[in-house]
């Protein structure tokens, strides 16, 4: 219950935050205008619409996850609002999980809005819509959850700026993890160990990418989908537990 009230309060905070609206409006404008511009390339029209549409939703969601996520905890410590929360019968991990869930709710609503925008364009352009599109959107949302948890973890031990850089790096490398192993194989022993380490520690974000499936009308089995979702949620749990352990030891000064 306490976690839920903190989550709802965080959601309310986000709703009253101008930054978020700016990002969201910007995202919708970008998605809309780039899709309209592409009317020229007739042959590959549908394919591009889906590709760019899903791609922009992904990028903008991640940006929101990072920029709101890094401030979630830091801002509370800087503004000392955390003093009156932690002195109440609320465990630190409850605070952390509450903040995380709050931003997750925000991201969920954002994803719905952006997906709504995409669907409008698709319908207007008479692109056939199948179930795979919704599965892809669902996994994009799971990816947001992972990125938010990374941002939250970083912000429990470092500044907002460094958190943003780390999280962005995790996002980029997370989409290249498959290459890490291949790349590592070509390097010396030290480099190989480092890259292998990164491969196992960083989330493999490409797993959440079903764009190709949507565009080429491929199928994903239900059990595979379940496995991917489970992977995301376990990863999030791992990140939140680590964040809680660090947060528990911290002095708020």
């Amino acid at each position: 219950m306490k976690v839920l009230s903190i989550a709802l309060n965080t959601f309310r905070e986000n709703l009253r935050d101008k930054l978020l609206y700016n990002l969201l409006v910007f995202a919708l404008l970008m998605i809309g205008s780039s899709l309209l511009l592409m009317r020229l390339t007739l042959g590959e029209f549908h394919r591009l619409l889906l590709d760019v549409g899903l791609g922009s939703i992904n990028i903008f969601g991640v940006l929101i996850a990072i920029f709101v996520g890094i401030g979630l905890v830091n801002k509370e410590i800087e503004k000392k609002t955390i003093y009156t929360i932690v002195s109440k019968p609320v465990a630190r991990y409850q605070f952390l999980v509450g903040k995380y869930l709050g931003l997750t709710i925000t991201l969920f609503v954002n994803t719905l809005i952006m997906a709504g925008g995409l669907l409008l364009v698709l319908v207007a352009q008479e692109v056939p819509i199948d179930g795979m599109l919704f599965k892809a959107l669902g996994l994009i949302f799971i990816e947001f959850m992972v990125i938010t948890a990374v941002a939250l973890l970083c912000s429990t031990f470092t500044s907002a700026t460094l958190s943003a850089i780390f999280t962005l790096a995790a996002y980029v490398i997370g989409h290249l993890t498959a290459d890490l192993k291949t790349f590592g194989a070509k390097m010396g022993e030290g480099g190989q160990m480092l890259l292998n380490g990164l491969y196992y520690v960083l989330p493999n974000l490409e797993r959440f990418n079903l764009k190709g499936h949507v565009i080429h009308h491929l199928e994903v089995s239900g059990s595979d989908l379940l496995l991917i979702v489970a992977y995301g949620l376990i990863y999030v749990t791992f990140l939140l537990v680590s964040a809680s352990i660090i947060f528990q030891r911290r002095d708020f000064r």
Partner: protein
Amino acid sequence: MPSSDVVVQIDQLSKVFRVGFWGKRVTAVDQLSLSVRQGEVFGFLGPNGAGKTTTIKMLMGLIYPTSGRASILGHPIGDPASKAKLGFLPESPYFYDYLTSHEFLNFYGHLFGLWGASLDTRVDELLELVGMTHARDLQLRKFSKGMLQRVGIAQALINDPELVVLDEPMSGLDPVGRKEVRDLIFRLKESGKTVMFSSHILHDAELLCDRVAMIMKGKLVACGQVSDLIERGATHEVEMVVDRLSPEGLAQLRLLASKVVLQGERVMVVLASQQSVDEALDVIRAAKAKLVSLTPHKASLEDLFIREVRGGQPAAEVHV
């Protein structure tokens, strides 16, 4: 000697901060021991930078002690059982400024597991108590410092706590605001709550407190009942102002006085103790000078405070 009527027990508490690139050690609180008893108003005094906020933050579980320990209401600090019966107002508080005072207090009520109609009435009562009913639906970002302090006090009372800890509750307020906070603290005491508050303004403490502790550079320098500490700090000085004093009279007074100030015809003399007042009066009469005024210096906590600041040496603790 922890007993059941001790609400806050602090034993040998220390906090060392590491600051700057080289991790220089700053001892903010140094082996502090004291206790706050059930039902009293306890003043935690000291100049800026003495370590008051650091101590309170340790008690609230916001920072961890480097060594030593403390307990609140019989539980070690940070224990949820004690937090449930605790109210806390931080120094120059900031709150979620996108919330209205009503939303804010409701949210904090939820954190104590309070919901529904009983919470609604509680919130309205508290807004009434701190005189903020008119600002019920105003966002905190539009609040003045004094208004923030008031909702800050309201949030500290949302759970009807047994112990209320206030960090500099009167700083930054105008005289009317300070008086209101004082009245509020009195009312809390009357309703049986224990209040611990910090201040660097001794006058407030003198009016309010049953007992006070004075700290300096993180160390306890005095602790006890206000009246006893005033007695300790008292100088018993007497100030006399005399007109038309002859040079011989002046020479004789100089022998008795700790300080003499000449202002033309007028002489101001400070006597170190009341014992020399009679002698001085004899001198004045003999010299046929005119006594303008005779003022015993009223002792206050300020005297002890200033003496401790100047002396810099921690005094032995007075146990009362």
